[in-house]
């Protein structure tokens, strides 16, 4: 599904991703762990198409070269990024935003536009699965949401948009124990043979709930080790000192 070869990304003089190879197949769950500043969010941003990076190497999604494809088109192709720090957008009503986004994505998949009532029903249904109070839907997008509420709102969007590849950037940080469980359930219930996950996390805890097929250690812009879920447990004990 996703194939990165010798991917490099830099901003101005600063090079951040320094030759990264990664192959994610349909149905797989990959976890990326790594010290602060190692380039995890940058990788996620680059995959989503964020502007401002100088990029080299190959970046293929379902066999297609992504390099020239803008952010919104990538979203339509099925790439979803749950932000480490979701953005507050004043004045934009959350459920209106969700409706607009959902219909845009649906349209690109050739599915028919849903009317407001059906959309709202769907949104409420998914929200309640995540234990998100309906009141949030009428609030301004992410404005004044607590850290955990923002993260849940990201997962709500994931469940609505049904992406092929979901990149979760530290979605577990800031979630309380119950919320973590709910979010993990949300991910697990969406997981299938057809879609894949790239989960960026600092903690093994999330990986206890969502079992990864592969765990990669990212250090200084490169994957320095790949293993199975045992690697996460090992890291929990030893930290990253062996990789510096």
């Amino acid at each position, binding site marked *: 599904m996703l194939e990165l070869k010798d991917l490099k990304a830099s901003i101005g003089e600063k090079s951040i991703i320094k030759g990264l190879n990664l192959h994610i197949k349909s149905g797989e769950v990959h976890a990326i762990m790594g010290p602060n500043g190692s380039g995890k969010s940058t990788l996620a941003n680059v995959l*989503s198409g964020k502007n401002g990076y100088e990029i080299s190497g190959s970046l293929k999604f379902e066999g297609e070269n992504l390099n020239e494809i803008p952010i*919104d088109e990538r979203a339509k192709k099925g790439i979803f990024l749950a932000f480490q720090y979701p*953005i507050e957008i004043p004045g934009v009503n959350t459920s209106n935003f969700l409706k607009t986004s959902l219909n845009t994505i649906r349209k690109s998949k050739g599915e028919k536009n849903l009317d407001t009532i059906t959309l709202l029903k769907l949104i409420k249904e998914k929200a309640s699965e995540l234990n998100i109070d309906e009141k949030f839907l009428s609030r301004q997008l992410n404005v004044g949401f607590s850290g955990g509420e923002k993260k849940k709102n990201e997962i709500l969007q994931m469940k609505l948009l049904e992406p092929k590849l979901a990149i979760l950037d530290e979605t577990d940080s800031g979630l309380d124990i119950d919320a973590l469980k709910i979010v993990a359930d949300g991910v697990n219930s969406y997981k299938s043979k057809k879609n894949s996950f790239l989960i960026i996390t600092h903690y093994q805890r999330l990986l206890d709930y969502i079992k990864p097929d592969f765990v990669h250690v990212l250090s200084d812009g490169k994957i320095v080790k790949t293993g199975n879920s045992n690697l996460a447990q090992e890291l929990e004990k030893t930290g990253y000192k062996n990789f510096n």
Partner: protein
Amino acid sequence: MKINISNDDFKDMGLSVSQKDFYNSFIEMGFPNRKKEDWKFTDLDKILNSNFEQLTPLKKKSKFKHEKIFNFDHYSITNLNGALIDFVFPKTVSLSQLKEVNHLKKHSIFFGMRENLIPGRPTVENASKKDQMLSLNLSFLDRGYSFKIMDPLDKPLVIYNYYDDDLRGKMINNSNSIEITDSKCTIIEVDIDKSKSKYFKNTFQKYKINESEVDYYFINQNNSDGFNYTKNEVEINDLNSKKGSIFSYFIFGSGSKFRKDDYEISLNGANSFAKINSAAILKKGEHHEVKTKMFHSQPHCKSHQKIKNILLEDSKGIFQGKVLVSDKAQKTDAYQISKGLILDDNAEFSTKPELEIYADDVKCSHGSTSGNIDHDAIYYLMTRGLPKKEAIKLIIKGFLNDVVLEITDLNIKKLIEDHLEENINNEN
């Protein structure tokens, strides 16, 4: 630039001074420039000079077949080039065309003749001698309307302001007066102006609100090359009521080459409430100023002002807002906020909030911010499938939304949403 006049442009107004006298004092002063505090950000002299070779007072009062453009049930007043041409009114409203000398005398000469509200300030003795725009207005004033509403209105009143398509180089001076007593009503004033040629309009409008609840919407419906200056004087008088009047004024002014909407609002009775809400999307070459002076002369009054501007291309948005609180006006609650969202390096948003307070037990605040659009917000929305243009549109609408949310009437809300939508889409 010269003003192109003949002797019969001046009429006898039946006053001790003639229109010619007003004109002479205007000529002495000239158009206001940036040296005048009130025109600090809008150098009218310069702006007019660079856009007009000459200005000729518009004489003809044409008639035309007009259509009502709003499909909800309403009363109406229809003007063409500032002159009244038609009205549909309930019997409880008295309306007179402002053309006789008597009316002129009654309604216009009082403009600017405000009584002394703030201690220590000189009494305005002869406003027209100090106010260029007023003296210009009185020099050529030949059109306008005046009406009184003495009961609640069961339907909104729409004031349609139509304009000829070609008013090239013309100057319109008009004056209107609105008095509302013991009423609850909604008034929508809409400029339907598609003029692709430059003209200049100088309007003086007076409002008297007595023990009433009034929602007033000004909407600029089209894009035009018109230059508009409007001076609004609002008196909110609650002489014997505990409840107090509520005057809620909305300005949706985007679409004209030049607008300066100038408000002087006096809260003359206890417990009155004045609200000003403005939302504008300014595009190529637009210059739009909202200027307010809010006089709190009585205790327990409130004034809330919210100004929101989106600035595209080389547009210029301005807010000058002054709040004056007299020593009698204890328990005043005055709030003012202006925000600009700038989408182009060549666009500008200038604000000048001012507080002048002589009472000690008051709650007054003001704030103003301006900044560029949040690129992370565009990015975020695009990761959810929205094309860049749509993402920006959503952010713009969100920015203006707290003004739109103040509108309770659903028909009007729809009008405003359409107005804003049209102005966003016009951006290239």
